[in-house]
């Protein structure tokens, strides 16, 4: 009786491991509907007076090209102003700004804080306070200092504001570092799935989890309604802004054809710091909006089952993976044939999701896919990829590992088979540990060369899971909220 109850619990653990896969498939299945249900029909030729707010702290390497790309946009110059909000930079930002203000008088402005270092949200608020005090601005574009806008990106975002129900619009941020390397290729592919694909699905479901911090356009009314300032209490100010926009009854829209380019981290450590900040911010939001989850009375869309599933499938993914490993490993000893069936089922589901997501992502953004298709294929890591391929060919796993014998218990297994099976069962968790190992050895000078092969073996997906797990620890420990600035070097290029 006790054993069968334990079996049921372990089976449930394995099923929990399937949740992120099912949610991922659910989102990708919705994307086709974007052909029929999108916001384009409600757009219009619309050029509000836009104040572009660019927070900058020691960004002289990138500001020149950013300002040039903004001034090169096909948006009426008389209807846009660029405000560089200088967070007391100690580099040559003031000198550069003198030059730019002279060159683009009436379009480019320099707002300088004399005491800085408090992070992006504080810097933005300083600029918003100044700019909002004048009635000129009808909309505000909040962006990052390294982001380059395609010529028509702002036009494409602004057309959605013709619909009075829209509070904010976000663009499709692509990784633009040239030359691309393994890490930036992974991010390139990740952004197809997480933005071009996932945010289209969110358009269908009428909610938005996050307006990209690097390119979000707000109406004046919306900015005033959310308090006329950016939240400073968390590390994910852009997600807070997104939630507040929608909770105030306004729409948040993603336009996948408004494209901007950003420079993303090119090493594991840089990515870890950036994503840890994001993941901790998401945990803070989860806590702050605890009354919202599965509460459709609070908000029809943000309180929906769909939104909670999508949100928590990402937030709790490391826990789901660990539970699935525990479930499989426990069932290995409790009921080996059942564990084997569940393992095969789990990985067959993985095959379906992997093929669907990877192939569809390549088709959604073929331009990025041409640069990042290898990263897309090895996204789950080489070992997981091997298990996916082995699971696809019927009978192969049994042939290789079980030598086609029926085992009613683990005790009849050869030692090697036992070790391999347990390794595969635990790989969902071990892959996160291996990804963390890749991060650790990246810092060791004589082992640094091993870091990339280790990342390839463990996978980029498990790396993101490991970072999320790290965020649990940081939040539990109440670690100081530090704004770890991502280093920008100015190697981003507009590719089209």
């Amino acid at each position, binding site marked *: 009786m006790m054993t069968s109850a334990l079996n049921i619990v372990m089976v449930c653990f394995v099923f929990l491991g399937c949740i992120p896969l099912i949610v991922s498939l659910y989102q990708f299945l919705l994307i086709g509907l974007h052909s029929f249900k999108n916001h384009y029909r409600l757009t219009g030729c619309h050029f509000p007076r836009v104040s572009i707010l660019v927070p900058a702290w020691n960004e002289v390497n990138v500001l020149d090209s950013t300002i040039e790309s903004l001034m090169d946009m096909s948006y009426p110059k008389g209807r846009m102003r660029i405000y560089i909000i200088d967070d007391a930079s100690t580099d040559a930002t003031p000198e550069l700004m003198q030059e730019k203000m002279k060159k683009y008088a009436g379009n480019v402005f320099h707002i300088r804080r004399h005491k800085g270092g408090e992070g992006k949200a504080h810097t933005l608020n300083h600029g918003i306070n100044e700019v909002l005090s004048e009635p000129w601005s009808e909309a505000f574009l909040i962006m990052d200092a390294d982001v380059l806008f395609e010529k028509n990106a702002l036009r494409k975002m602004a057309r959605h504001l013709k619909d009075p129900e829209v509070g904010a619009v976000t663009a499709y941020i692509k990784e633009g570092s040239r030359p691309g390397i393994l890490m930036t290729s992974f991010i390139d592919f990740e952004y197809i799935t997480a933005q071009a694909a996932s945010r289209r699905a969110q358009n269908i479901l009428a909610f938005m989890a996050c307006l990209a911090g690097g390119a979000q356009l707000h109406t004046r009314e919306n900015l005033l309604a959310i308090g006329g300032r950016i939240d400073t209490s968390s590390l994910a100010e852009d997600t807070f802004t997104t939630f507040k926009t929608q909770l105030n009854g306004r729409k948040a829209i993603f336009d996948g054809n408004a494209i901007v380019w950003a420079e993303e981290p090119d090493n594991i450590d840089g990515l870890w710091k950036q994503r840890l900040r994001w993941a901790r911010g998401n945990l803070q939001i989860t806590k702050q909006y605890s009354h919202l989850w599965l509460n459709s009375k609070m908000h029809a869309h943000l309180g929906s089952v769909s939104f909670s599933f999508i949100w928590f499938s990402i937030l709790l993914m490391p826990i789901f993976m660990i539970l699935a490993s525990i479930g499989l490993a426990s069932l290995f000893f409790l009921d080996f044939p059942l564990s084997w069936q569940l393992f095969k089922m789990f990985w067959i589901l993985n095959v379906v999701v992997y093929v669907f997501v990877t192939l569809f992502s390549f088709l959604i953004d073929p331009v990025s896919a041409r640069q990042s298709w290898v990263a897309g294929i090895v996204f789950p890591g080489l070992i997981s990829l091997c298990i996916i391929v082995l699971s696809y060919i*019927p009978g192969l796993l049994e042939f290789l590992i079980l030598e086609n014998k029926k085992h009613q218990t683990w005790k009849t297994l050869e030692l090697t088979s036992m070790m391999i099976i347990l390794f595969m069962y635990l790989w969902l968790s071990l892959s996160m540990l291996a990804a963390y190992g890749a991060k650790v050895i990246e810092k060791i000078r004589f082992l640094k060369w091993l870091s990339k092969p280790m990342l390839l073996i463990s996978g980029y997906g498990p790396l993101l899971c490991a970072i999320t797990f790290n965020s649990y620890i940081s939040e539990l420990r109440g670690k100081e909220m530090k704004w770890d600035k991502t280093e920008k070097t100015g190697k981003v290029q507009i590719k089209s």
Partner: protein
Amino acid sequence: MNDQETYLKELNEDMQVEKKLWKKEILVFSVLTALVVVREVYLNEWFNFGV
């Protein structure tokens, strides 16, 4: 080209991109179905692992 014409041209291009999404989804479905058929029908025959 004036702003209205540019807007309509861009809108049309973007709508075309969006309209292709469901066709791409059908294509991915087809590939997935083909993979299932290959697995269940052909791979079982080609790789006879004696299961």
